[in-house]
């Protein structure tokens, strides 16, 4: 929904009631609001209606292969980083029927899927995730055959961004230049302010639709102190990144070393479980399945998330091309950090850290790059 026009109105301040009013206003305009909620001891993205649905007073501790929710000492509503979910599940569903076929006297007919019935508002989408969204936009919409279902879901989206106040131990958006500040691509952006004993949100407007919603909810103009506090939040986040990734020459670094011994080394740890690709907000690989009703009268085609870590992914009549885990890990990281530039003009990594946190053995994309880079700097001994 954000368009080129950026309203000139200055930032506003809303309080907790204002945030509830925002949810109500979005609901009144036909949006189903999706936002962070606690499910199964993790913060996930799910439908919500009330401020009380948000994970108030919770934060997350993240490291390689580790994720744990902990209590905060305050009532922050957004005091955590990203969890196992990414927003891609809504625009590119993990399982999605593409069409159905029905037998007829003459042969068969095809039934297309209806347009989506819901319009979504994403509450709390962070800078790294907005970048991931933009990356998936290029994948699904930038080619010669735009993906219609993605386009239809994307078109009506209302985006309430969150200026990130709490990086995790696996975050590295600063290295990827995707955060922590969201500067465009949203309708509204919130910075949660907890200082001075008053819980409030600084609201930036990124589109006409955002401007219209803001006008409909109680707010006041932001003052200089509010702005300074909001800047301090982002500065603090930027200074507390859990990881760093040196991206200099990374495209060549990976493409030029397909036979590096590190691929073999990481393969001894990698389980090829595909967790990293499932939690990644930009991974877009998929497969299809065909099902036929037992009567043989109807059939349907379904698209499912797939992963370059599965053996079946590279199957070519007779066998899989990437039999070894080393080849599959190499494919994933080389695609993500290197060939993505050739294909879509940017990195495929936004530095959200999910692949590190959710790897059952704690393989760290930043560490793997560091290992390859540093091995090339070592002097070779004769």
């Amino acid at each position, binding site marked *: 929904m954000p368009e080129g026009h950026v309203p000139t109105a200055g930032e506003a301040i809303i309080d907790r009631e204002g945030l509830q009013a925002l949810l109500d206003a979005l609901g009144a305009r036909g949006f189903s609001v999706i936002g962070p909620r606690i499910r199964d001891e993790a913060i996930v993205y799910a439908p919500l209606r009330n401020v009380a649905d948000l994970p108030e007073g919770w934060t997350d501790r993240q490291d390689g292969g580790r994720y744990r929710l902990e209590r905060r000492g305050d009532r922050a509503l957004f005091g955590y980083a990203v969890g196992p979910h990414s927003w891609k599940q809504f625009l590119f569903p993990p399982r999605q029927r593409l*069409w159905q076929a029905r*037998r007829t006297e003459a042969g068969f007919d095809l039934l297309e899927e209806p347009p989506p019935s819901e319009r979504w508002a994403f509450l709390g989408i962070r800078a790294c995730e907005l970048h991931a969204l933009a990356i998936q936009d290029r994948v699904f919409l930038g080619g010669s055959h735009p993906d219609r279902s993605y386009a239809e879901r994307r078109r009506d989206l209302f985006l309430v961004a969150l200026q990130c106040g709490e990086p995790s131990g696996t975050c590295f958006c600063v290295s990827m230049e995707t955060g922590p500040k969201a500067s465009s691509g949203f309708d509204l952006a919130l910075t949660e302010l907890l200082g001075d004993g008053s819980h409030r949100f600084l609201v930036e407007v990124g589109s006409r639709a955002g401007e219209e919603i803001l006008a409909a909810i109680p707010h006041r103009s932001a003052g200089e102190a509010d702005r300074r506090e909001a800047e301090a939040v982002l500065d603090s986040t930027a200074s507390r990144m859990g990881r760093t990734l040196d991206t200099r020459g990374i495209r060549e670094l990976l493409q030029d070393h397909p036979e590096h011994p590190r691929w073999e080394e990481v393969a001894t740890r990698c389980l090829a479980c595909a967790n990293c690709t499932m939690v990644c907000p930009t991974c877009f*690989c998929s497969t*299809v399945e065909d099902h*036929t009703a037992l009567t*043989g009268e109807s059939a349907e085609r379904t698209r499912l998330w*797939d992963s370059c870590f599965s053996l079946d992914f590279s199957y070519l009549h007779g066998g899989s091309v990437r039999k070894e885990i080393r080849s599959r890990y190499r494919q994933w990281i080389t695609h993500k950090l290197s060939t993505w530039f050739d294909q879509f003009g940017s990195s495929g990594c936004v530095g959200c850290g999910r692949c590190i946190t959710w790897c059952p053995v704690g393989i760290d994309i930043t560490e793997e790059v560091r290992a390859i880079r540093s091995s090339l700097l070592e002097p070779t001994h004769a």
Partner: protein
Amino acid sequence: MRSPDPFVPSLFRVDRVRRESADTVTLGLLPIQGEIPAFRSGQFFMLYAFGIGEIPVSVSGLWGQGPLLHTVRAVGPVSQALCRLRPGDTLGVRGPYGSPWPLPQAEGGDLLLIAGGLGLAPLRSALLPALAERERYGRIALLYGARSPADLLFGEERSDWSSRDDLQVEVTVDHASPAWRGSVGVVPARISHTRFAPERTHAFVCGPEVMMRYSAAALLGAGVPPARIFLSLERNMKCAFAVCGRCQFGSTFICRDGPVFAYDRISRLLSLREL
């Protein structure tokens, strides 16, 4: 008005079926509604068999000349189902996709078509237009290798091609009994028996990847510049328009950037294992 859904095929009807060998047929397809979409030699379509699935198949004919022709070999569930289709049956078709053989670029020089097995089908779609505008090319040669004499495709047409004096046809098989009167040996070995001027030749190669690698090496050895050697590659693909991610080959998507690639662009990738 909704935009078209690129995943939804169009319905075509089988107009004719020609058996090429024990496991290979050529299907002639006509749209149930509308026209056959414009395509170029070397491109491919996704063919859907009801309830079974969808596979990429290169065109073996020309646009604007009768039905859409696809030559299919029964090797997997979908290709087996396609090979069982009979005239009047319905199937799903979407496309065309991918890069064509660069015929216009080859004009004015010699043209070498090197086919292995089913690879003759996509190259037939390059040979026919070249023969139709024969005067635009120098020498034209077709080198065709198959497993055995019984596996050779397009029998009648090949004898027509062999009888032309403006086309050199070299056919060779890997295995034969003494009853076979033709050549036994591999395709790359036939390159040295082919008349062409390497520095002004374009070579189009289609067949199993190993056969293409050996052929490219023989062409390089004969002096054909790597930028003028074109291979048609194959990988697993589901969408055919670069969103399913499966056919990635280095930076390329074979469905979008290929299947036809200039050798100089992919030679390094071809040498990598399990890419």
